């Protein structure tokens, strides 16, 4: 069946996102919060995350330009981004955010610039992968929330 195949693909994509460390258990918790009242809750949260995080990334970029070496300010902005990452289980991206904060702590401007590029990269990759995942789910049709990786 076409739909079963699409669901399998979605499950497989999700498994690989976990295996490769893009997502962690928190993402499962968000999906588990889906119910009949909010069947698309996970997609809504993720969509909101990318909207807000794009804005935060821009804020950080502007802060780095406008306030050179203002590590406290840069760090404060990145703290915000980290908070959102935690909420959806964006693990890899979160790690890069932490690296950035470490560079801020060391007052290492070059380190900050490097890690910030990584944050942006992980942000873009995760967005693309999760868009694919939710697209597969949408095509697979309404209904049951996706199962956890490894579970029946």
């Amino acid at each position, binding site marked *: 069946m076409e739909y079963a195949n699409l669901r399998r693909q979605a499950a497989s994509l999700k498994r690989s996102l976990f295996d490769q460390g893009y997502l962690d258990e928190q993402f499962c918790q968000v999906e588990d919060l889906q119910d009949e009242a909010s069947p698309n809750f996970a997609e809504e949260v993720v969509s909101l995350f990318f909207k807000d995080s794009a804005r935060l990334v821009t804020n950080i970029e502007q802060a780095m330009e406008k306030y050179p070496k203002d590590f406290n300010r840069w760090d404060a902005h990145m703290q915000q981004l980290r908070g*959102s990452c935690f909420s959806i289980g964006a693990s890899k991206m979160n790690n890069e955010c932490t690296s950035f904060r470490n560079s801020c702590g060391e007052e290492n401007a070059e380190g900050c610039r490097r890690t910030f590029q990584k944050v942006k990269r992980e942000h873009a990759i995760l967005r693309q992968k999760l868009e694919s995942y939710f697209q597969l789910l949408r095509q697979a049709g309404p209904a049951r929330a996706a199962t956890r990786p490894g579970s029946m």
Partner: protein
Amino acid sequence: MAAMGGNQRQMMEDAAEDKFPEGLRVLAVDDDRVCLKVLEVLLRHCKYQPTMVMDAKKALKILRAGKEQFDLVLTDVRMPDMDGFQLLELIGLEMDLPVIMLSVDCDKKAVMKGINHGACDYLMKPVHTNELKTYGSMFKVGEDPKQ
């Protein structure tokens, strides 16, 4: 369970019900929309009644107005404008409400600051349902939170 006397079983059933009383009125404060959205659904799944606000000043306004009663306040630590610690202090001074801090960091100094300023607990994000459920039994509707 079968070996228990009727009274004991009744007590355990009562206790199980008490554990997750419905309707705990929670005011949650966080400037992050994503955190707030997830937290709201978590709280509803605990059968609580959540009110979500994005800044501390608005939270204070609601609390001071007194039109709505709350049993518990959950607040993010780091917020622009007024942060969680300031909100905690003002709530402690003006009203008798338990406050729980939420943070992405478990910085020891911050935790101590929270506890010293009167926070009932300090949770790390992301928060889980089972952590939130325990508050239902601690801060039951109508009970004195300071007991």
